[in-house]
């Protein structure tokens, strides 16, 4: 929701060529600094004048942050790699098609050419009350404007809301959780910190002002995909209103290894339903050792939405999420309808 679009308030612009230099700048400007990757999420905030950083630190000229490399039987993807590069990469296509599908579901050619994987997983929530600058919990205020009797909250959370009902909108996030990706962070102090994708995202209970564990001054360096889930059976589906320009109302990503005795192991995550992408541990446990059948899928899907608390306009997300989980488990040719949307 636009307040004033043009021109953007002035800022200082830095193009460091090393992460060390970038972090010197981030330290110098502290809370007034902003990390710039592809800029798709960032520029929105600046144009709306809701966030007014004093200094932009562009990571675009740091060579080490770009590209996709073989790593310990898996892949290491630099945080500044664009979504388009992911979609094109042969090793991603051969072994981690789940991530390819998720990246491909991200809007359009232009957005995939410009947006980076690091930016995609670090993007802020799309809650329009928050993005329009309303003083909500997430913005340091004392209420949630999306959770009032009059609120328009069709896109908001059905699970794990805690004061704030915003959701995480990243398309690649659930795929990275399903692939058990590791996020390689360089902390403000210069130390390397590696966390599981699942732990990278935080809900309001942990910190209501942030979507990820990144602390000011931290830089996400790379995302590593372990060999464990390479070539598994994958399922990804994103349900949205329009093909381009719309975020997931709900999405699901799963990696499954099926043997003679049924499902040997599975990792499954959903997004668009809570403040962080959710790994469905209970579902993973339930399906182990069972056939990938309709009845397994049904039991698991009901478990997945257990405890859901819809708001006034988003009760549809409960059956939607249930169906997505079901399809991820038993597979679906029916999902071909999505090609028409």
């Amino acid at each position: 929701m636009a307040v004033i679009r043009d021109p953007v308030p002035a800022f200082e612009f830095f193009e460091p060529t090393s992460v060390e230099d970038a972090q010197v700048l981030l330290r110098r400007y502290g809370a007034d600094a902003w990390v710039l990757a592809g800029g798709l999420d960032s520029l929105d905030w600046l144009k709306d004048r809701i966030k007014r950083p004093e200094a932009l630190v562009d990571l675009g000229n740091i060579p080490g942050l770009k590209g996709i490399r073989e790593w310990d039987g898996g892949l290491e993807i630099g945080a500044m790699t664009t979504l388009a590069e992911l979609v094109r990469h042969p090793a991603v296509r051969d072994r981690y098609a789940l991530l390819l599908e998720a990246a491909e579901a991200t809007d359009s050619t232009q957005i995939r050419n410009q947006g980076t994987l690091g930016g995609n997983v670090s993007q802020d929530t799309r809650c329009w009350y928050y993005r329009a600058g309303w003083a909500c919990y997430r913005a340091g205020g004392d209420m949630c404007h999306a959770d009032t009797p009059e609120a328009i909250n069709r896109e908001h959370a059905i699970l794990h809301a805690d004061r704030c009902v915003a959701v995480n909108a990243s398309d690649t996030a659930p795929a990275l959780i399903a692939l058990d990706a590791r996020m390689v962070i360089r902390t403000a102090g210069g130390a390397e910190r590696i966390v599981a994708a699942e732990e990278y995202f935080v809900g309001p209970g942990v910190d209501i002002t942030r979507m990820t564990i990144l602390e000011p001054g931290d830089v996400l360096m790379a995302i590593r995909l372990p060999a464990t889930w390479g070539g598994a059976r994958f399922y990804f589906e994103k349900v949205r209103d329009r093909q381009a320009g719309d975020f997931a109302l709900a999405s699901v990503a799963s990696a499954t290894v099926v043997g003679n005795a049924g499902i040997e192991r599975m990792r499954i995550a959903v997004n668009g339903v809570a403040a962080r992408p959710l790994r469905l541990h209970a579902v993973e446990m339930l399906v182990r050792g069972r056939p990938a059948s309709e009845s397994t899928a049904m039991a698991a899907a009901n478990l997945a939405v257990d405890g859901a608390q819809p708001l006034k306009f988003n009760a549809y997300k409960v059956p939607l999420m249930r169906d997505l989980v079901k399809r991820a488990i038993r597979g679906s040719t029916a999902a071909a309808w999505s090609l028409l949307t």
Partner: protein
Amino acid sequence: MTRAIALTVNGEQCGGDVEPRTLLVHFLRDQLGLTGTHVGCVVGECGACSILVDGALVKSCLMLAVQADGCAVTTIEGLSTPGALHPVQEAFVNRFGLQCGFCTPGFVMASHALLMRNPNPTEEEIRRDLSSNLCMCTGYVQIVEAVKEAAVTLEQWRTSRT
């Protein structure tokens, strides 16, 4: 404070002093006078500002001019040659792929980028790919037809040259 940038635009060396906050689309229009690239929404939703940067289709309202420093940019003005429209432009004219024309530069650039990547797209692929761009007038049917016609013309070009 401004800074100097140097880039190639439609094959020509260009430069300028820009404030870091200047969007690439505004630099192209206001400083270089290349007003063929349109500004619709300024937030990445309409596609009217689509151009090529180093061969990749981007929305130039979602980029700062300083981010294009050192890059090769192609705008709608770079597609036609003096006296002759580019086959994609020609096809938009032939098939009535435009009415008011506001969205047209963006659609032509997006169609051009699609046909470079995929010279023979199916209707489904055309529709999917061009979903990044919005048109308020045509209802899209003629735009899709224009892209199909352009694909045929470009194919004829290629075969007649080889």
